[in-house]
């Protein structure tokens, strides 16, 4: 029996949306208030969905302790209370939540081996959320 398990995490980070290839005026026009040179921050909520057969011995898709430990170590410690613009993955990329989703998904997808990473969903604010499944279509 294949089931999908979703776990929700929280972290806060700051960023500034600015593309060095664009002029000052273009950056201001494209990113608006998010282009403020001093940056700003969000309380992000991250949902990680993994799937797999339910182990008949444990009743689990994967042990939550392992998923929580991985996300804590690889994601929350990296992004929590960080300035995203200072991180290697955003040295050439604007730290929009779209790009942040792709970075988080790729880290999970590459190294979490205890279940299939299906997708992630990221809330930047209560009004905005983004989902990414490595480019695959999402199921409802």
């Amino acid at each position, binding site marked *: 029996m294949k089931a999908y398990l979703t776990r*929700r995490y929280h972290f806060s980070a700051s960023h500034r949306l600015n593309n060095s290839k664009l002029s000052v005026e273009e950056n201001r026009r494209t990113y608006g208030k998010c282009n403020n040179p001093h940056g700003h921050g969000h309380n992000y909520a991250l949902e990680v969905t993994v799937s797999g057969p339910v182990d008949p011995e*444990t009743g689990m898709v994967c042990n939550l302790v392992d998923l929580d430990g991985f996300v804590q170590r690889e994601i929350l410690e990296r992004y929590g209370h960080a300035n995203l613009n200072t991180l290697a993955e955003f040295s050439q990329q604007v730290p929009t939540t779209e790009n942040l989703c792709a970075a988080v998904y790729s880290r999970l997808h590459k190294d979490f081996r205890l279940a299939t990473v299906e997708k992630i969903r990221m809330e930047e604010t209560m009004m905005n959320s983004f989902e990414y499944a490595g480019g695959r279509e999402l199921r409802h």
Partner: protein
Amino acid sequence: MVYLTRKAEFSASHYYHNPKFSAEENRRIFGKCNNPNGHGHNYLLEVTVKGEVDARSGFVVDLKELKDTMNREVIEALDHRHLNKEVPEFADQIPTSENLAIAIWNRLNSKLNIARLHRVRLYETADLFVDFYGEA
């Protein structure tokens, strides 16, 4: 195709223990959930059905029938129960949210003649939920 979701709440207690494992393995694998005196959750259930909209009624499903079936087959059996001790599916299965979502699917799927079940989503807490789509 239109999808319709109905929510319901129930509260239940459980603990995780596999008699095939040693006491030490049970503690290591299940952690605090292995406490033999049990603990409980306020579960939030979302049942999604799908179908074409009936031209006469404008419904995918008669909500009252869906609600009654959910109450009869799921809520009455699980609400304010000890899952390990009072729900037959868990006599020989660990009552994790994964297994509970599958049990709810099976209970509903055999009784819902009025629409096709699409998904059972079960929140164990606000930060943890399981989806089951009836996949083998």
